[in-house]
């Protein structure tokens, strides 16, 4: 793995100046490498990891198991990509087992998500069935525990 990728994974939200300091490169070189990773579609982007449970305009999230018909030549890819393009779709995976695609969807209300499934998703030609599971509560997101505080403060500042 390239040093810059390791550091992105380990370093959390380091700025490119900080990345440059750690990697002993110029900031320009770090930016060039980041651009290269973007161009290669290795680095897709940065997003904050938020716990939106306390926000008024909450988000409703659902996981949908989708069975689709594979096509000669493209397999599942064409339909999977078509489904993935909807803004409501957060992630989409091809799975082994009883269904084909696992689709993570979010919307501003239960009705909107339900409408998306019935009107957009289920009606696509090639989609055989959908099974929707609404998420009730999140405990861990992208490696972060939601309601467990870091206990860093308890540690000694100097120790032998």
């Amino acid at each position, binding site marked *: 793995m390239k040093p810059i990728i390791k550091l992105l994974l*380990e370093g*959390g939200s380091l700025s490119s100046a*900080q990345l440059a*300091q750690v990697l002993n490169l110029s900031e320009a070189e770090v930016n060039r490498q980041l651009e290269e990773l973007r161009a290669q579609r290795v680095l897709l982007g940065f997003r904050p990891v938020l716990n939106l449970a306390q926000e008024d305009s909450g988000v409703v999230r659902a996981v949908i198991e989708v069975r689709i018909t594979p096509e000669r030549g493209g397999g599942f890819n064409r339909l999977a990509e078509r489904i993935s393009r909807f803004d409501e779709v957060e992630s989409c995976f091809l799975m082994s087992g009883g269904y084909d695609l696992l689709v993570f969807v979010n919307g501003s209300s239960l009705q909107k998500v339900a409408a998306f499934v019935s009107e957009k998703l289920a009606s696509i030609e090639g989609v055989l069935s959908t099974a929707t599971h609404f998420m009730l509560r999140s405990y861990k997101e992208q490696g972060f525990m939601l309601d467990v505080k870091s206990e860093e403060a308890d*540690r000694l500042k100097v120790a032998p």
Partner: protein
Amino acid sequence: MDPSRYIAKHVINLPKSGIRDFFEVVAKMKDVISLGIGEPDFDTPWHIREAAIYALEKGKTHYTSNLGLIELRRAISKYVEKTFSIGYRPEDEILVTVGVSEALDIAFRALVNPGDKVMFHQPCYVSYSPSITLVHGTAIPVPTYAKDNFALTAEALRAAWQPGAKLLVLNLPCNPTGGTCDRAQIEAIAKFAVEKDLLVLSDEIYSELTFEGVHTSIASLPGMKERTIYLHGFSKAFAMTGWRIGYACGPAALIEAMMKVHQYSMMCASILSQEAAIEALLRGEDAMKSMRDQYHRRRDFIVRRFNEIGFKCNLPRGSFYAFPDVSVTGLSEKDFAVSLLQAEKVAIVPGTAFGANGSGFCRACFATSYEQLIEASNRIERHVQSLATKR
């Protein structure tokens, strides 16, 4: 009445750990970036913690065998054989202790007669010299030098040796210097130990955290297993400092002698820690290696920064400590550490906390986040520059 007149003379005369003084100062300050810790910044991997919770649920709340759970001793035997190529019998050559600290203490108590001479290399972990004093032994420090990257050399041993020396304590890789010895150097030390008939106590707590080359345990060399007590534990490699769990391996007669002291003082290590330790040995390797790799990269960064700042700093081959020479500032290590703390709120530990020949050096622990390391190094740089303009 003065209660202090009841205190034993050798305890009254025992100096407080230099690290303790510094800790008192730091503890009162807010927003300090601390490179002063002597432990991993990672919490114990969850699967290890979960194993202890499971053990508690299963009612594992009783004493264990004085030697420790046989399952743990079997796991230790396998791990030490596989990782460091030394074979110990789980039944009578392994003793589970409350950290290496206890193992070292009971080894001294089991082996040292009043006046017996114990050699150890310095700068070193804070407890060696006091522990020898507590058993009425005579401490013989052997200096290690920055020019050797703080490896212990047979020449230094020979120069410090005194007739009647009985024990040699090794700590490789070393806290605070990060120094260690390659195979040839270890062989030379082993040869010296045989020549002078020394028993070796080898504290190898940082051995997994060796970044360059392969860690060679002195006990793995031909003829050395019978004259070595091998001390190891879980604190550093598995991020388990607070669990207080370690072990001693050695010839059955010596383990039996240590066990006598252990059974009358400690009885056994905490069963929960022992259960967690089993999990660490059986399934902890991936997490351990991932932590080691991260320390490795942080080491390369902080050592480079220290050298950019103008400190001479060797690349420590093991542990998670850098030991830069701060004498370029014109201040003593202690004055520099105190002024850095006051001016920039960065805590590092003066080298003299680890022995008089740590003079001129400071210990900086790099087991902390990149953000903290970057910020700390920038603050240190600023402080060194401001000291230079004042001079």
